[in-house]
């Protein structure tokens, strides 16, 4: 692990934020598409 001295906290905080926020956005997208697909499937089943 590299030593960034005084800058370590800032460099790692930025990097973690840069990973965490896209992960949250991916989770939001996956959940949204799953829920809407499940609703459509339910509607189709009710039609049948």
């Amino acid at each position, binding site marked *: 692990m590299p030593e960034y001295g005084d800058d370590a906290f800032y460099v790692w905080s930025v*990097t973690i934020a840069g990973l965490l926020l*896209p992960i949250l*956005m991916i989770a939001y*997208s996956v959940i949204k598409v799953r829920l809407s697909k499940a*609703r459509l499937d339910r509607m189709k089943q009710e039609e049948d």
Partner: protein
Amino acid sequence: MLSYLANPLRFMRFSRVAVPISFALGVLMIGWSLYNGLFVVPPDEAQGGDLMRAMFTHVPSAWLCMGLYAALAGASFVWFIWRHELADVAARAIAPIGAGYTALCFITGSIWGQKGWGAGWHNLILGDSRLMSVLVLFFLFLGYMALRAALETRQKAARAAAILAMIGFVNVPIIKVSVDMWQTTTIHQPSSVISIGNPEPRGEGSGMNIVYLQQLLWGFGGHSLLAAAMIMMLMRSEVYTQQADRALALKLEGA
């Protein structure tokens, strides 16, 4: 390509394959950019030593939030002129991802600024042309989503939101020139890659070193692919929702 994908059925077939590929490539490219940016490239003393490694996260998110707004305005324009439904679906999907990347740009910039400038963005924002114009961009994304949610019918919401998105596009060049042409109004450093109206932004011979630029481009490419995957997922979600709404309307009519 775009006209081919303008058909919703073709888009659904294409995106089923494109989402996992775009996602996997995006993750690999971001990983490569961060590995090199954090562990391989030497620190740049002119940009604060090791602190400059924050740019491998901050700069791609800053480029992407402007690019996503341009895409939102472009999709809104296509819907407004040609009334193409998939363009409206795309605009609706771009907005939350654009807002997320603008928030990421703010968060990472604020942490970087805390050390680099001695004060976080939250202490500087009111008097600074770059920070204020990015804040306006964030509110434009939020305003777009709020407007869509507030109006009763889908057509009214799409029309009002498209007008907002197109007018708001004027803010994108303002963000760009705020650090190049109005340097006295911002604490933010000038552009290091493409500078408008300021050919020597950081003194003679101080352009960005190619080893840093390469990592920035890997990171930007990776985040762009990741954003594309998320936007396609949200577009698929919107198509499913519209299909379910139509099925529900038919059912209610028949009842």
